[in-house]
């Protein structure tokens, strides 16, 4: 039981100031813009919720939101199971483990636009290994032209880029399982699947929650990689929420709708984060008292 100590606020103050400076101030400006029509720096007209209503009705936005949700769900459906399998297949200790860890974690450290560039080169039919290979196999693959090809390439790129995060989280979860559990399972004659289903999965629940939270949130705000790879094309097949918002805010400089949409986007994130965080806490406390004497 943690002792109550209000003086602890002094320790938290520096963080509060830093994050407030770069969070609350900008948020106020966004709110400020979202309720005004700025015709020129001098003339500003209060328009209340007009921008919000406009954004709600904006067809293009609906398209972008649907594509974003579809993309994020696809990311989860592919990356979580793939990450688990990868974690299960990674060696436990020794130099092999370190080598595999470094190779697997490498993609997480590549700047996002370089990831885009890599796949941009990799996928081209004329100079890319993947493009050339697919063409040799007779598959007509052109991610710049065909919408589904583009969407699939962005998905595979994201899988290539972020699955290691899920894998490393699950790997950490597996590491925390005491050896006695595996011995008990061997003694009980449990099959490989039973060991996974009844020992490894329950123990990985905590980290899997973190993985789902991180992956869903990060994919929900993806911008750079698709922008570099397909520029949101062909048409708006791979234009997701962040890119749509950036076009509106920096591209066309119509600040009102952009600010309104920013707020809505932020509220969606807040809501999803709240749900997942509480679910994680309830699972966490359940694990905590179990592992208390583990």
């Amino acid at each position, binding site marked *: 039981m943690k*002792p109550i100590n209000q003086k*602890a*606020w002094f320790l*938290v103050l520096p963080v509060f100031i830093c994050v407030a400076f770069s969070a609350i101030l900008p948020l106020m*400006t966004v709110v400020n813009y979202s309720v005004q029509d700025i015709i020129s720096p001098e003339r500003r007209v209060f328009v209340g919720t007009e921008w919000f209503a406009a954004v709600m009705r904006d067809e293009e936005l609906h398209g972008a939101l649907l594509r974003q949700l579809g993309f994020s769900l696809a990311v989860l459906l592919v990356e979580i199971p793939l990450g688990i399998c990868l974690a299960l297949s990674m060696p436990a200790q020794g130099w092999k483990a370190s080598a595999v860890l470094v190779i697997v974690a490498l993609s997480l450290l590549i700047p996002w636009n370089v990831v885009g560039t890599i796949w941009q080169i990799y996928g081209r039919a004329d100079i890319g290994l993947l493009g050339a290979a697919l063409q040799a196999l007779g598959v007509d693959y052109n991610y710049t032209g065909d919408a589904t090809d583009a969407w699939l390439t962005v998905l595979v790129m994201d899988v290539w880029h972020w699955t290691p995060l899920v894998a490393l989280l699950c790997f950490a979860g597996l590491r925390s399982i005491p050896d006695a559990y595996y011995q008990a399972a061997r003694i009980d004659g449990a099959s490989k699947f039973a060991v996974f289903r009844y020992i490894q999965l329950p123990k990985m629940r905590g980290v899997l929650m973190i993985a789902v939270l991180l992956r869903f949130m990060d994919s929900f705000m993806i911008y750079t990689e698709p922008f570099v790879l397909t520029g949101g094309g062909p048409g708006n097949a791979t234009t997701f929420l962040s890119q749509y918002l950036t076009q509106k805010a920096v591209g066309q400089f119509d600040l009102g709708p952009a600010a309104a949409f920013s707020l809505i986007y932020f509220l969606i994130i807040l809501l999803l984060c709240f749900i997942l965080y509480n679910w994680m806490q309830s699972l966490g406390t359940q694990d905590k008292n179990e592992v208390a004497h583990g």
Partner: protein
Amino acid sequence: MDERRFRKRTIFLIAYLLFALLPIYWMVNMSFKTNEEILSSFSLWPQHFSLASYKTIFTDPSWYSGYINSLIYVAINSVISITVALPAAYAFSRYSFLGDKHVFFWLLTNRMTPPAVFLLPFFQLYTTLGLMDTHIAVALAHLLFNVPLAVWILEGFMSGIPREIDETAYIDGYSFPRFFLTVFLPLIKAGVGVAAFFCFMFSWVELLLARTLTSVDAKPIVATMTRTVSASGMDWSTLAAAGTLTIVPGAIVIWFVRHYIAKGFAMGRV
């Protein structure tokens, strides 16, 4: 039965490692070819090995200044994030206080907010403050994402240290600052290392804010690279070389924290 399952597992692992390494290999391979060779022939290995593109990067100030700028603001950001996050993580890990749950959740939501949402406000804020196109601007902007992450990871590692060690130190007569520096910090060296790794990782890879808040003086490598995309005729070779060079710092950092990577990713929760 054991061998068959073992072989199945290693095949899957090797397949994934190939899937992970091939694209990188292809870029590195291209970085040693000249543009002509890239466009003319298709080969798995550069016919005539050329370091031309690397030479251009290391000589052309607009290129290598990008790396220097990136490293500067990443370093600033990491130092600020860690020094600020350490006391806060200690407070969250050791005490409960009014609204601690809400502040922790608020920090988490900041980590999850899309940079795009704050694009415009940062732009306005830094222009009014006259901080546009400076390393500090990008470093401060990235604080919004790195500080919550650092607090979360450090809090996880700190909760692993029994509270009785703090009490024993206070009983022995340690004052809080002396205890924190001489006793507590050495115990969470791993945590600080991993938190620094994550701060580095995030601000080194982020493009949107870094490009928007800088124009010339503090333009990071990530921004200079997007410039070549719109240049006439794709200078693929230099682009590939620049890309390869951005991977090098990442690989070095991973090697240093490889033992704590897994634990760090789980935010010390494991």
